C-alpha cells in the first residue's frame, strides 16, 4: 500500500489563506507564493512560511505550528500621506480578512494560534519607491497519518501491517 502523503503547507495552509484574500480583493491584489520579491505590478502580496514547529505528537497524528509571513508591496511615486494611507488601508483589510477566517473549513481544518502581527516600513528590497509591510500569522494544523507496525520473524525478516493489511517490505 502506498504511503498517503498530504502536502500540508501548500494545500492546507498557504492555499486556503491565499483563497480568502483573493476572494476579498477580487484580482486587485496579485498574490503569490515565494520566498523572494517578484516585480509583478503596482502592488502585490507575497506569502511564504518561515518555519514550522511541532506542538503536539499523539498516536497517529501530529500538530504543527506554521509561522506564515505575508509581505505586502506597494510601488508608488508619491511621497506623501496618500501613499501611506493606501498601505495602511490594504494591510488593515488583509488583517481583517484573516481575522474573519481564523478557522478553516472541513477541507482545511487549520486555526490560528494567535492574532496576526503587523510591521510597517520594512526594508527588504533594493528597489526604490516601494513601501513594504509584513504580516505574520501563526497557523496550527493537525495531520492524521498512516500507522504501521513492525513484526520481526525468527530469521529477522520484517512484515509490516497497516490497518490489518499485511505485506512484505523486504529485508
Amino acid at each position, binding site marked *: 500500500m502506498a*504511503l*498517503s*502523503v*498530504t*502536502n*500540508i*503547507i*501548500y494545500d492546507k495552509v*498557504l492555499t486556503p489563506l491565499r483563497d480568502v484574500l483573493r476572494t476579498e480583493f477580487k484580482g486587485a491584489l496579485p498574490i*503569490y*507564493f*515565494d*520566498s*523572494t520579491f*517578484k516585480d509583478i505590478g503596482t502592488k502585490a502580496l507575497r506569502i*511564504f*512560511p*518561515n*518555519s*514550522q*514547529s*511541532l506542538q503536539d*505528537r499523539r498516536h497517529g497524528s*501530529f500538530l504543527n505550528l506554521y509561522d506564515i509571513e505575508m509581505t505586502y508591496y506597494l510601488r508608488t511615486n508619491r511621497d506623501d500621506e496618500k501613499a501611506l494611507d493606501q498601505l495602511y488601508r490594504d494591510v488593515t483589510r488583509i488583517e481583517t480578512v484573516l481575522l474573519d477566517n481564523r478557522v478553516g473549513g472541513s477541507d482545511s481544518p487549520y486555526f490560528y494560534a494567535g492574532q496576526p502581527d503587523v510591521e510597517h516600513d520594512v526594508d527588504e528590497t533594493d528597489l526604490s519607491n516601494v513601501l513594504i509591510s509584513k504580516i505574520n500569522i501563526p497557523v496550527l494544523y493537525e495531520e492524521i*497519518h*498512516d*500507522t*504501521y*507496525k*513492525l513484526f520481526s520473524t525468527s530469521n529477522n525478516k520484517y512484515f*509490516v501491517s497497516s490497518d490489518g493489511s499485511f505485506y512484505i517490505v523486504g529485508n
Partner: protein
Amino acid sequence: MATSFTNAWKENVEEIISSTIKDRFSNSLPIFRTPNFKFRGNHFMTIKGINSSSDNSMYSAIPNKFFLQLDYYHYDNKRNDTSIKHFFSQIGRIEEIFYSILEARELFNLLITSITFEDAEEMQGFRKAVFNIEVSNVR
C-alpha cells in the same frame, strides 16, 4: 579481549533513517553523510548528528536520545507556483515517512521538532529545508 560495541550513530540511527527515506523515494533522493558539504544534483539531503543524551541507565542496555539535523536541498530555477508546490510536497512526504514508516522500525519517540525554510543568494538557486530531528534508540 576488545570491547564489543555498536556504532549507534551510524548503524542504529543515521543508516536507518537514510535507508528508509531512500527506499520510499525509490532511490531518487540521495542522502549524504559527509562533513564536507557541496551541492549535488537537483535535490538531495544531508544528515548529521548534533548530540545525544542518555535517557537512563539500565542493566546491559543503553537508552539514548539522538538529536540530528537533516537538510533537504531542492533546486528551483522556475520559481513558480508549480515548483513551490512540488518543494512543499517533498517536505510533506519526508515528514510522513518519519511518522508513518520510521516509527515502525527500531527507532521510537521520533519527533520532527521544527523545520526551517531557507533561500538565499549563496544557495545557488536551491531552496533548503532544515529538519531538526529527535529520536530514541536502545542498544
